[in-house]
């Protein structure tokens, strides 16, 4: 899945598409999201114990998985950049990290909204929550690091290395906290059990919609980054570095 997205955003043909098709795609994604919202609110059956609040789950989980897909693309792009030194990989790495952060923010916020009525608390230091939070911090740091290095080529290399370190850290964060918490008893987190087939279908619809949204945002962001890169290079050729973008 990640590969398919990566290659579609990278082909030069897609970068040069006329504005009208962009508008069409945006409308398409908006329509998909509307359908997903409708399904989550009206088609999916009401959950037996949690009631209406459970419907937030249809956006909570897809946004989370989509964020992970986005970070996976970013990690892959960072390795590819170090190996090939083609600027396009660096552009893709920053684009997907930057698009992934709001997705994971949506996941954290919707999770908190869901947790409050269901568990009676906004937040708990559970393995999944904590590792998602650390992941969020790591990628915010990645974006921050990028803004603090001026030389574009150095920025690309250094942030790629950081990205790789961060990606390797994620399983450790997960297992450390999972392990930490299983030694100390605490409220059991939802999940598991059997899922109503209609619920599952709605979940798939919502995931497709969020993935489409990721694709659209990623391409827009990539295009913007490519333009910035081009401007920076033209500036350099003209001999006045000017302000770094």
């Amino acid at each position: 899945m990640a590969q398919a997205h990566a290659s579609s955003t990278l082909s030069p043909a897609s970068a040069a598409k006329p504005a009208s098709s962009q508008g069409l795609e945006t409308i398409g994604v908006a329509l998909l999201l509307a359908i997903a919202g409708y399904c989550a609110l009206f088609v999916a059956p009401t959950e037996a114990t949690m009631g209406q609040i459970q419907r937030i789950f249809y956006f909570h989980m897809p946004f989370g998985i989509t964020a992970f897909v986005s970070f996976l693309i970013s990690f892959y792009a960072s390795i590819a950049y170090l190996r090939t030194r083609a600027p396009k990989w660096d552009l893709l790495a920053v684009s997907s990290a930057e698009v992934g952060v709001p997705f994971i923010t949506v996941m954290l916020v919707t999770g908190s909204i869901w947790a409050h009525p269901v568990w009676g608390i906004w937040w708990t230091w559970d393995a999944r929550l904590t590792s998602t939070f650390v992941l969020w911090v790591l990628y915010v740091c990645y974006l921050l690091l990028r803004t603090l290095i001026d030389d574009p080529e150095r920025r690309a290399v250094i942030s790629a290395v950081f990205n790789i370190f961060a990606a390797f850290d994620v399983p450790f964060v997960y297992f450390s906290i999972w392990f930490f918490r299983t030694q100390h008893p605490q409220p059991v987190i939802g999940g598991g059990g059997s899922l109503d087939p209609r619920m599952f279908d709605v979940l798939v619809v919502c995931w497709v919609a969020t993935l489409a949204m990721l694709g659209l945002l990623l391409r827009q962001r990539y295009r913007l980054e490519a333009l910035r890169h081009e401007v920076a290079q033209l500036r350099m050729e003209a001999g006045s570095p000017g302000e770094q973008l």
Partner: protein
Amino acid sequence: MSLLRPTAILLEKELRSELRSRELITTTFVFVLMVLVLFSFTFDPTSTESRRFGAGLLWLALLFAGSLMLHPSFTREQTNDTLAALRMAPLDPVAILAAKILANFCFLLLTEMILLPVFAALYNLRIIGVLAPLFLVMALGTLALSTVGTVFSAVSSYARMRELLLPLLLLPLLTPALIASAEATSGLLDVSPSLSISWTAFLAAFDIIFLTVTWLFGEYLLEE
């Protein structure tokens, strides 16, 4: 092996330059001591609480100290552009990183060994019976801190706001190592001390993975 000899030579250089001034070890020692005293003032722990939280406080203090003391390891080389000279030398760039990691590991571990008795006295803890396993846990935790810390010292040395950036990059990444070290240490400080094999193995795995990642990708940090 071509990596060992240059690493040994560079390690000697790092150790010699530190032993001449001893400023890194002294400042880190005083810093950690101060933080531990401040923690003690803030929480005023009873001896049961000390056994429960002491290890966490110690590791937190060490982590903060590490994020400050590891910072000069690359910026120091920038003053006279000595890093460029090292890069020009006919050696594997990973050796430069490896030597710095090892040197920082030695400095930190030495500081910890001086600190441990003071820490035990301040927090009223018994460490005599568990010195060997405690040393193992300290060494594994410190290796995690110095590996990632040294690499990120190189990362942040190219950036603006580097003093602030290093802790920012380092602390979230070291969360798992902090949890593992603190848990393993607090198991040893307990009334009936025991070495948690799983946390120790976790720390060792953390060290191995990040040393490997450094070995694979570290050289990119040093290129011109």
